[in-house]
């Protein structure tokens, strides 16, 4: 039980790596920096594996297994311990994060090989791992918030890693500020939670919540408020409508960063948080609905934008947003397990996609525009195959990881306890679009004839330390979902069962359907419903698959069969095209509605009026007063010793008087 009792070890490892590299690494050769960074992360991963082994021996009653390391804040009855805990959910997240993180570290050693600030990059990366794991293992909202903000910080640092590029800097700022808006809600949510449960410790909060009467659609209470506020934070962090705008710009950062932070781990923090707070959300149907709606809308909306993007990373960015939307949709319809499942698979294939894209960019010598690529299939086979696998996975082609998870979600959205046909519909369409733009990406990049100057750019496969992570992730993208496979043939869903305690523990008594849904799904496979074969067929020919295939074919038709079609199409519906191409002008709208007024107010009111007028007025005024009184008072400094003597005498007389008075009183 070494690690269970010393969870902090897992955190300290990457932190140590970050510290060592950050403080000492400046003049070290890259080898040492690599060694430090990777060893720290790999050790962390091994530690997690060990942790999982020990965890598997725990009795259910011992879960969640917590450790309280030191008393951090104490103010009145507000007491925050630096406490960590492990339960099934945490385990999943830890595995995903540490594993993907490790792979991406390895990949980065290849990708960043020619970059400056090498030690800085890895120090940040390790630091990110530290914060992410803190976030995941936190046992109370405050510690979670630390991780939450910490990853935000690292994201800022890494997006702005090339701080000589103006666009990178502003992208970093944008990411930070936009996220702040959500975090504001999050913070308020925390406060409200404390006000309500008089504790921010998960266990305590949930126990409290369990005793409270759940809100209903008609009657919304404090639980709803908390849930919505927290969800605001999730929106900001996980780039949902309407705060998604920062994520595409965040692609300014190095590709491994995009892969690790803006695809695999950080952006999923929101989903994790919602899943973690499920007892609260389950009791706030309105909030649930909101989550579902936001998720579905985002899924659909981002997908549509994805269609017209030409920058390979932008496409992936929007697809990330939309996939996150799916996860929230899953949570929104009460299928937390499905959401987390999708989170995990997504971590695999989206991480892979980004890494592959990175490899492509690497191969193209920095070129990101898909329309300047093409026909790379032969030159960089490893990248091609792995990317294809990932695409199939994300598109939800049966047998690949994405299929299982997405199917779960849509299934829950369609036939789950909180089923909502409209959300389901949006999800389905989004899925179709997803597969379309993903295959568009594949076809544009790897098929057709090269659209780049083959003499200038020498396409070459990436080095081993980049391709090996690709292969590993490809493997996972393909088979990562099979844990849930038996479910299709009517068998049990291992993943869901594994997570079941987390979500069932505090499930609202009113909404037993939560548990019942599992039972139901089990029951469905039980035999009341059509047999396993039918089940399999049903899910294999289910709407998701159909739309996926349609999207695939459409993409094929447009970009392989009739390469000139897209242009004509764009001409035909020019308005719509430009609208979508410009991402619905959301950035411009925000600029017009929020940023510019804000700037105007800051300049004309806060700066010129408040600061220059009032504050400086006060300061200078006091200075003037002091000066004036001083110039009067200094007359006392006559330079004539006898005057000074007289002053002394005056003082003496005063004191004596005082003494006499006092003594008079005493005696």
């Amino acid at each position, binding site marked *: 039980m070494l690690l269970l009792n010393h969870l902090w070890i897992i955190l300290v490892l990457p932190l140590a790596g970050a510290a060592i590299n950050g403080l000492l690494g400046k003049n070290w050769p890259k080898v040492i920096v690599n060694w430090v960074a990777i060893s720290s992360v790999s050790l962390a991963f091994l530690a997690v594996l060990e942790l999982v082994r020990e965890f598997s021996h725990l009795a259910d009653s011992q879960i969640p297994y917590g450790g309280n390391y030191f008393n951090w804040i104490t103010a009145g009855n507000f007491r925050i311990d630096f406490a960590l805990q492990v339960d099934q959910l945490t385990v999943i997240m830890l595995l995903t994060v540490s594993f993907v993180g490790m792979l991406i570290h390895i990949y980065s050693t290849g990708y960043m090989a020619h970059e400056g600030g090498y030690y800085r990059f890895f120090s940040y990366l390790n630091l990110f791992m530290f914060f992410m794991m803190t976030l995941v293992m936190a046992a109370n909202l405050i510690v979670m918030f630390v991780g939450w903000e910490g990853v935000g910080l690292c994201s800022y640092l890494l997006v702005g890693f090339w701080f000589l590029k103006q666009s990178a800097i502003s992208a970093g700022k944008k990411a930070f500020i936009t996220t702040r808006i959500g975090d504001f809600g999050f913070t308020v949510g925390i406060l409200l939670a404390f006000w309500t449960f008089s504790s921010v410790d998960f266990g305590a909060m949930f126990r409290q919540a369990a005793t409270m009467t759940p809100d209903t659609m008609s009657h919304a209470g404090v639980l709803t408020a908390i849930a919505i506020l927290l969800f605001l934070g999730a929106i900001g962090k996980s780039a949902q409508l309407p705060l998604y705008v920062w994520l595409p710009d965040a692609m300014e950062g190095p590709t491994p960063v995009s892969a690790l932070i803006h695809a695999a781990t950080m952006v999923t923090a929101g989903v994790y948080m919602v899943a973690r707070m499920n007892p609260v959300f389950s009791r706030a149907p309105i909030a649930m609905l909101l989550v579902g709606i936001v998720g579905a809308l985002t899924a659909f909306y981002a997908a549509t934008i994805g269609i017209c993007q030409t920058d390979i990373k932008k496409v992936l960015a929007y697809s990330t947003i939309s996939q996150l939307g799916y996860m929230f949709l899953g949570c929104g319809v009460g299928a937390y397990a499905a959401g987390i499942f999708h989170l995990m698979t997504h971590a695999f294939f989206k991480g892979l996609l980004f890494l592959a894209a990175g490899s492509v960019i690497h191969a193209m010598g920095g070129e990101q525009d898909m329309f300047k690529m093409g026909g790379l299939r032969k030159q960089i086979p490893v990248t091609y195959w792995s990317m294809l696998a990932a695409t199939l996975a994300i598109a939800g082609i049966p047998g690949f990881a994405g299929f299982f998870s997405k199917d779960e979600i849509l299934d829950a959205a369609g036939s789950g306890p909180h089923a909502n046909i409209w959300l389901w519909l949006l999800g389905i369409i989004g899925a179709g679009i997803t597969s379309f733009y993903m295959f568009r990406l594949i076809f544009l990049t790897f098929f057709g004839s090269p659209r780049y100057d083959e003499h200038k750019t020498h396409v070459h496969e990436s080095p081993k330390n980049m391709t090996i992570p690709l292969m590993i992730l490809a493997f996972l993208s393909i088979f990562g979902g099979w844990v849930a496979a038996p479910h299709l043939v009517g068998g049990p869903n291992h993943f869901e069962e594994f997570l079941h305690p987390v979500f069932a523990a505090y499930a609202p008594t009113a909404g037993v359907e939560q548990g019942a849904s599992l039972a139901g799904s089990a029951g469905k496979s039980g035999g009341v419903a059509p047999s396993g074969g039918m089940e399999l067929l049903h899910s294999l020919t289910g709407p998701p698959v159909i739309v996926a295939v349609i999207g695939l074919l459409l993409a094929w038709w447009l970009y392989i069969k009739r390469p000139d079609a897209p242009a004509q199409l764009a001409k035909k519906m020019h308005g719509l095209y430009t609208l979508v191409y410009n991402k619905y002008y959301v950035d411009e709208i925000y600029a017009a509605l929020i940023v510019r007024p804000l700037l105007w107010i800051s300049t004309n009111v806060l700066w010129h009026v408040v600061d220059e007028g009032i504050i400086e007025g006060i300061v200078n005024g006091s200075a003037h007063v002091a000066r004036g009184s001083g110039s009067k008072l200094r007359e006392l400094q*006559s330079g004539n010793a006898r005057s000074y*003597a007289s002053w002394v005498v005056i003082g003496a007389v005063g004191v004596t008087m005082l003494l006499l008075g006092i003594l008079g009183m005493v005696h």
Partner: protein
Amino acid sequence: MSVVPVSYYLVLSGILFGLGVVAFVFKRNIITIFMAIELMLNAVNLAFVAFARAHNQLDGLVFVFFVIVVAAAEAAVGLAIVIVIMHNRETLNVERVNLLKF
């Protein structure tokens, strides 16, 4: 042999102190101003001794001792300063030594 009440000494010391203060304000010559200070110190010493006698304790005398020592030190430095002033300003009148002012 009858004894002089201690309060007599105290009154005398009070008067001397007051005169010292008056001299301190009244005199213009740096050296005499110094003397005024010495006068005040002496008055205080008298009070000390008187109180020592009154309570029949030695501490008062010890204090006087220290006061005398300090006065000696003070005189040494002070007079050195006076000499310097005289060299630089050619006067001992404090009212003429008035450059340090607003």
